[in-house]
């Protein structure tokens, strides 16, 4: 199976819905480590992306990806806006030129996006950021044979990665000023990444089932 423009739009809608449901929980995670706005920001941005995409006329996959990049970058704001924005922006070349994305096309998109995030944020695994969820998810996706296995893997790996941030001190983001006091709290950006991949996984299962 391939992911074309219609599926890509539906996938982003599924993400927006799930993030919106998790908004207050994500805000609470950010209140413990930062300034308490993370859920509000990501939820507003993904909703805006969905609206912007709905307004496009017969968009290609890369039109959709670009619209998402812009919405995330400009409507999310904050550290997460720049970081998630870099994910979409750096993934864009890998989307471009494809009518629809095979599992291995998507792997290239995710890898380029991850690279973009790490470069923009100067972040590695272990810094207690969203990279702790994103990096293992992308690695798991690469190992999988198809989309179904891939999405299932990303969802599991991202959640484990997010949970792993609980025991860490932070080297990036607002939480780094907390030192040892950051221990015991899950990074909100990492939780968002896990939520996103869980939303994709559920959406994919639903898609398969209804086909």
């Amino acid at each position: 199976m391939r992911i074309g423009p219609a599926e890509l739009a539906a996938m982003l809608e599924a993400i927006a819905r799930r993030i919106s449901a998790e908004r207050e929980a994500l805000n609470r995670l950010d209140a413990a480590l930062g300034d308490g706005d993370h859920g509000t920001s990501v939820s507003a941005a993904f909703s805006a992306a969905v609206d912007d995409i709905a307004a496009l006329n017969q968009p290609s996959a890369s039109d959709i990806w670009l619209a998402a990049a812009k919405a995330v970058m400009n409507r999310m704001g904050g550290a997460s806006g720049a970081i998630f924005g870099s994910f979409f922006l750096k993934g864009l070349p890998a989307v471009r030129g494809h009518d629809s994305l095979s599992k291995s096309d998507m792997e290239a998109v995710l890898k380029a996006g991850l690279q973009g995030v790490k470069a923009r944020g100067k972040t590695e695994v272990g810094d207690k950021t969203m990279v702790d969820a994103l990096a293992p998810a992308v690695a798991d996706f690469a190992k999988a044979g198809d989309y179904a296995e891939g999405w299932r893997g990303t969802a599991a790996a991202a959640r484990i990665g997010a949970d792993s941030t609980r025991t860490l001190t932070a080297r990036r983001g607002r939480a780094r000023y907390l030192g040892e006091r950051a221990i015991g709290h899950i990074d909100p950006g990492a939780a968002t990444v896990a939520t996103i991949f869980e939303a994709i996984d559920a959406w994919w299962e639903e898609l398969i089932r209804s086909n």
Partner: protein
Amino acid sequence: MTARFHKLINEPDRIVDEMLAGFCDAYSDIVRLAGDRLVLRAQPKAMGKVGLVMAGGSGHEPAMLGWIGRGLLDVNIVGEIFTAPGPGRIVDGIRAADRGGGVLLCVSHHEGDRLNAELALEFCEADAIDKVEMVILYDDISSAPKGRESERRGTAGLFFVWKLLGAYCEGDVELEAAKALAEKVRDNTRSLAMSLSSCASPVSGEVMFEMAPGEMEIGMGLHGEIGMGRQEALSADETVDLMLQPILDDLPFRAGDEALVLLNNSGGMTLMELFILYRGVAVRLREAGISIYKSWIGPYATTLETAGFAIALCRVDAQLKALWDAPANGAYMKQH
């Protein structure tokens, strides 16, 4: 204390737009609203001068809205509450500030503000908007130890940068010189904040964090980021004793130095308390042989209705004193 949950707003998602509409209407002789939440001077500065741009989240009013005007900044790009605006809007703001003399993008150091500013600068390069420089500003001694100043956060002490840099850029100066002046002020400024209460988000109605009555926390960030730990709330003079010495030691300020002093109200303090605190600060500075050139006491950079305050000091020489005394006319920062 428990926070006051009911806020006088209309729709949570119209807060920032309605706030800007009200502010720019009330002070239409000083500012005007343009584009996507850009606050500009009503009368732009003369062609050829360096433009000063500051992007940042809301929730700190009168910062930075109140600092747009003659002798101060040119453009404020306003974000959601506590949220740095994205790069596209920063680029818009840079364009709006461009009077042909180059634009200095001033960044109060927080990860989100810096990352979005960096992205904006890359976009400017791609768009061939040249003569744009960025300066990263920080002052909060609680957020990284001495020797690692560049990791520190930007907080209320940037007050001094806005005023002195604003005055400087009314003159015929080069972009590089403007950046150097901003760095000079930054490198002579140190701040430390404390808080007695939390605040509630007007969007969610949720309190930012829990704080028991009778507790205080030293080292709060400007967005309610928790600081160096809770302790029993002290008297005014004891609190000053606890906060001032680390500030003096950090630069360090020495006997014979001259300083500007700010006592910033985070929102919910009474001015009465701040005047009492100021008395303690002034006595101790004089004991340390540091003379006070001028002082300000008030809500300049707030964290919604948080009851807390910051002490900020800026060491000044003849150049900075003259820049301080230069006129300024922002809605919430006037000097003449």
